[in-house]
């Protein structure tokens, strides 16, 4: 096949894909069916009373559908640990696949593009970003935010501190080992928290604080904190490993 034929074939396939996908998607996207109101009204009337969270998003993802959230947390955990696993081994395997030696690969690693300016600014900003992350995480039940968002902000705080650590910041938060430990403990805690309702006879992933309506929001805060720390440690761990500090 010449390259012209190849291009033509490729274009033909692309058009085929686009046409058939559009054919199926159009009925879904162009539908004039009104949006359902049942679940929306239910949330509006019961969301706060059932979970204690003013932020309805929190009421859904840590209340009614907390079990789905556990699944999404596991997705993130797998993605992070899988990425690190592949990064740490891929050099060797790729080298083997292409018949090259490892040294050629390690030579291509860029030298650190770091200036004093970056060191100073990120080092000073790091703790502030961490604090903001904690705020987003802990106040997720009353304001926009929550565990996942707070966790990502915390992770960026960790990256800042790792970048700025040359000028003598004294923290162990940038050590990959410490982050891995935090992440694993948080995952264990998350699983244990999900079981907390069972001894009280309330079932899996139920809110054990539900007996007293003024306390039930505590469960949401606990879940938010655990998820936030886990996400922060996990993503921070991945970034620190990618910076070559692991």
């Amino acid at each position, binding site marked *: 096949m010449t390259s012209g034929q190849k291009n033509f074939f*490729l274009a033909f*396939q692309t058009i085929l*894909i686009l*046409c*058939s*996908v559009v*054919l*199926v*998607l159009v*009925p*879904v996207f162009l*539908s004039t*069916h009104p949006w*359902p109101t*049942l*679940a929306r009204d*239910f*949330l509006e009337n019961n969301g706060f009373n*059932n979970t204690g969270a003013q932020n309805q998003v929190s009421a859904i993802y840590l*209340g*009614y*559908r*907390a*079990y*789905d959230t*556990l*699944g*999404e947390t*596991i*997705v993130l*955990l*797998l*993605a992070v*640990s*899988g990425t690190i*696993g*592949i990064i740490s*081994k*891929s050099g*060797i*395997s*790729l080298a083997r*696949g292409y018949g090259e030696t490892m040294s050629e690969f390690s030579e291509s690693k860029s030298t650190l593009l770091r200036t004093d300016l970056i060191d100073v600014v990120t080092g000073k900003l790091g703790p502030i970003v961490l604090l903001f992350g904690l705020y987003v995480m802990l106040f997720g039940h009353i304001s926009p935010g929550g565990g996942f968002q707070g966790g990502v902000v915390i992770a960026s705080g960790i990256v800042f501190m790792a970048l700025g650590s040359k000028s003598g910041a004294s923290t162990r938060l940038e050590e990959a*080992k410490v982050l*891995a*430990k935090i992440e*694993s*403990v948080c*995952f*264990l805690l998350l*699983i244990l928290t999900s*079981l907390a*309702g*069972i001894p009280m006879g*309330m*079932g*899996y*992933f*139920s*809110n054990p604080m539900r007996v007293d309506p003024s306390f039930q929001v505590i469960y949401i805060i606990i879940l938010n904190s655990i998820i936030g720390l886990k996400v922060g440690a996990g993503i921070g761990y991945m970034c620190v490993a990618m910076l070559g500090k692991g």
Partner: protein
Amino acid sequence: MELTDLILAPVVLPLIGASLAFCAKAFHKNDKAWKLESFAAAIGLGLPLLLLVYLFQFVNLGQSIQVSIGRWPGNIGILYRFDGIAWLVSLLGFTVGSAAWVYSQGSGPKGPGFTTTFLIQTASMAAAAMTVDLFNLFVCLEVMGLASYILVASSEKPGAYLASFSYLMISATAMVFFLIGLLGFYKLTGSLSYEGISSVLDSLPQKGGTMATASLALIVAAVAIRVAIMPLYGWLPDAHALAPHSISAVLSGVLIKAPLFALTRLLIVMPGGGDVGRLLSYTGAITALAGVIIALSQKDTKQLLAYHSISQIGYVVCAWGAAIAAGITTPAGIALFSASFLHALYHALFKGLLFLTVGTTTDLAGERNVYKLRNAALSLHKAGEKVPITFLCFLTAAFAITAIPPFNGYASKAALSYTLKGSWQGLFLYAASLGTVASFIKLSRIYLPDKKSISPSTGMNMPLGKIKKTAQFSQLFLALMCIISGIAALPMSRLVLRLLGEVESDSLPPYLFSVENYTKTGLVVLGGILLYFLISTKSGKKVLQLIRNRPKMFHGNFVALSLGMAFLFYWIKLSN
């Protein structure tokens, strides 16, 4: 602890195990880590098996236990249902999973990181079998997929990353379509549970019309990718062939079937589900035949087995789809459904065993090419296997897949041909079994001594390591299961029938071990031998080479997905 909490244990226990293994990875090293990891595996794989034995009394009474996780009202919370289907799928998953985990402890991959991922994969498999919530099914499939991409890549073979990547790309694309389909159903019905969706759809004019049809097509196509039905199979051969052997066993044995039985729950309540079932039954028959033809042409031992997985899943899907089309509350439907399940269960056992034994053999002989590797039995002997356990286990599995009595494949294929009697799909499956026999004659030749004497300098008989006790143990376990489940096929099929439905029916001929059936088997074997000689001729080899070297492209997966989806859409639309 209440019953409604207990039924979630097949999901929760592996997750507890996974979190413990993850802690072992972060905190301990070497011996201590291994102890915690084994403890985690015992909690995550062993304990659920014991629990399933306990839970049997409830499903045996035909009970279906429904629970809303977190005790929220059913229209907003997540519903799980534990019944015969969930029990059987979990049993299948935990049995093969345990054997594969034990195997991996000797032959790799091992370590707490591997155990974490493996346990999470097992949990997601059990969850997919129980969920009756569309969004939760999405989450289960995502977790299951992500765990498999990592496990496939963990073999560190040069092509494994690419195989894992193309698997990731095609399933991630499919999951986007799944989400859009989910959006369509949610917009129409305002509900996420299967019953909620179907009851609102029934009350809508034209049962939701084109939008419902399109949504169903999107969701079914996305799940069909995971099952690897024929046009959507492109990711499977490489992923299954290049994964570590224990993972190949689990991927082929369990993970391609869990989504299929999860889809059952959706299709039996959805309007248009029967039409989907009919189409999938047709595709299943074609898949069974086409898969085995491609398998016959393969050079690489594990590629050959991977294409056989596609072919065998075709058998399962063929009967399964016909069951959905007939309705699984009718006697004919339930018979088809239980036959398909019986084959899924038995295939998990013998295909798991095949991957383990062939993997052990090729590793120790240092050669994967079917045409080059000979005298593997001697290599195994030199690797320290005095009693030829691996070879005997391989024979057991090969006899099972080619349906020789009394091994289990004989019973499940008899059930399939009994229930599919008189349909053209039955003929396709019959033709496919000739191919199965021929390709296993081809594969078995790796154990035979070569005609030419081999000089020791070729290095072919130098074992690359010692045989592992764990490998022998898990192979023996699976081989025993293959034999026992084959001899006890009649009570087994009645059990499956009883668990899947309360309708009186029969999925197996009353005289399974009869002269008439033996004659049929004999004819298939004879036909298979003939076919083998046919492909050994010069022109036969040329045809195989053409099939093997057919153009395969990464973007072919996407063409197949989109065309399949559009076809499915019009199929449902025109059937109404």
